[in-house]
């Protein structure tokens, strides 16, 4: 038992690496916050755009909107089918070769934001099309424009429907910040891993796992609550 404690909960090693883990927690937090803000807002913009592109148009214009709509769907499907780690590594090495110098932090942020935007677009879109056709027609017939209908009538209902699946997906993708370790982002896992290599003791890894639990366990529990609170009507 003493050996177990010495190996996994070595107070001396833990005290030594605690400051690193704490700074890692800060990096994880702001990286996650940036990913959530950009991912969710880009997803909403894309869903609204897809809704606008799906409106009936006269012939020559409809070819253009049709092509745009298909490329939007292609983007969403691409981002949903390629692993985030592949995108992070591709951006980290590939973008500097194109003259866009992006650090590990930027590559992780960009990749996770794009992936989240694709998933969010699908969820918002599912919410948008689930609001009955009659709502559109009724709102438009009262004289509201397309944009007014969308903002005042459709989106409030769609977003409410989207909240539970969106919460779960956002939590899952936010945990992907740990993938930044691969491209040297100094978040929790990176700090814990280097602590392990320097001290040759797994206590920093234990500490890192506890740090993740401290950050994400409350979010998972809130997510559980949101899921029952805003449950999908069936």
């Amino acid at each position, binding site marked *: 038992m003493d050996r177990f404690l010495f190996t996994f909960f070595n107070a001396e090693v833990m005290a030594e690496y605690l400051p690193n883990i704490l700074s890692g927690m800060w990096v994880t937090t702001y990286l996650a916050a940036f990913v959530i803000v950009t991912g969710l807002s880009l997803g909403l913009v894309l869903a609204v755009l897809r809704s606008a592109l799906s409106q009936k148009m006269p012939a020559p214009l409809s070819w253009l909107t049709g092509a745009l709509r298909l490329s939007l769907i292609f983007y969403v*499907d691409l981002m949903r*089918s*390629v692993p985030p*780690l592949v995108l992070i590594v591709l951006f980290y090495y590939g973008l500097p070769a*194109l003259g866009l110098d992006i650090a590990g932090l930027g590559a992780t942020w960009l990749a996770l934001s794009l992936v989240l935007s694709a998933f969010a677009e699908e969820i918002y879109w599912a919410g948008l099309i689930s609001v009955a056709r009659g709502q559109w027609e009724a709102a438009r017939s009262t004289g509201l424009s397309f944009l007014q209908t969308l903002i005042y009538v459709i989106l409030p209902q769609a977003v409410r429907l989207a909240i539970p699946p969106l919460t779960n997906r956002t939590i*899952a993708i936010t*945990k992907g910040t740990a993938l930044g370790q691969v491209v040297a982002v100094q978040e929790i*896992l990176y700090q814990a891993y280097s602590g392990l290599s320097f001290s040759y003791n797994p206590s920093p*890894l234990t500490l890192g796992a506890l740090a993740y639990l401290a950050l*994400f366990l409350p979010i998972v529990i809130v997510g559980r609550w949101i899921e029952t609170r805003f449950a999908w009507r069936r």
Partner: protein
Amino acid sequence: MTLSDILALFFNPEIAAKTSGFLVDGLWMTLLLCLVVIPVGALGGLAVAVLAALNRRWLNVLLVIYVDVFRALPPLVLLVFVYNVPPFAGYRISEFEAVVIAFLLNTSSYYGEIFRAGIESIGRGQWEAARSTGLGWWQTMGWVVLPQAVRNVLPDLVSNTLEVAKLTSIASVIALHELMFAARSAQQLTFNYTPLMLATLIYFVLLWPVVHLLSRLEHRRIAAG
């Protein structure tokens, strides 16, 4: 940088031809991983959900803790932990074993939550009717409740399976020779990004049909109200 430079760096047919055999080896390992990890995780999740349905209070507390803890830990953290810690206890764990164990812990939590939602979506009347015909608890669960539950949460099951398949790419971090690892090694050997583009293409071609199926399932569920 001219267009031909970019093409030579990212879409180089020569490099693609040279490294494709290596990538295909990695692809087989990725497929093998999926074949092992998905059924193991799904069965683990099924066990979690069925045990939760037994409604034993202390057991449910334990299950909720299990599910929430392993949903809160990023899978990569779990994998790094499972791979690096056993040697300190005197046990050398292989990369494959580490991936299977880490994925079991992570994916069984997610599958468990999905199956639980499915089981809860089945009304009391189904239970009472089945029990009153003389079926036992386990028979009711197996023959009456689960088939309907699985149908109700099919889109979520497919969606989670897609995530698990994509997640196998993190095995590259502990140097298991799967597709992502092959692509990164090839990239480092050739100083060229074509292998990474190729891996992206392979993942897309492999998983796009699942994404497409998923969109259809989700839209159908919404249309059903």
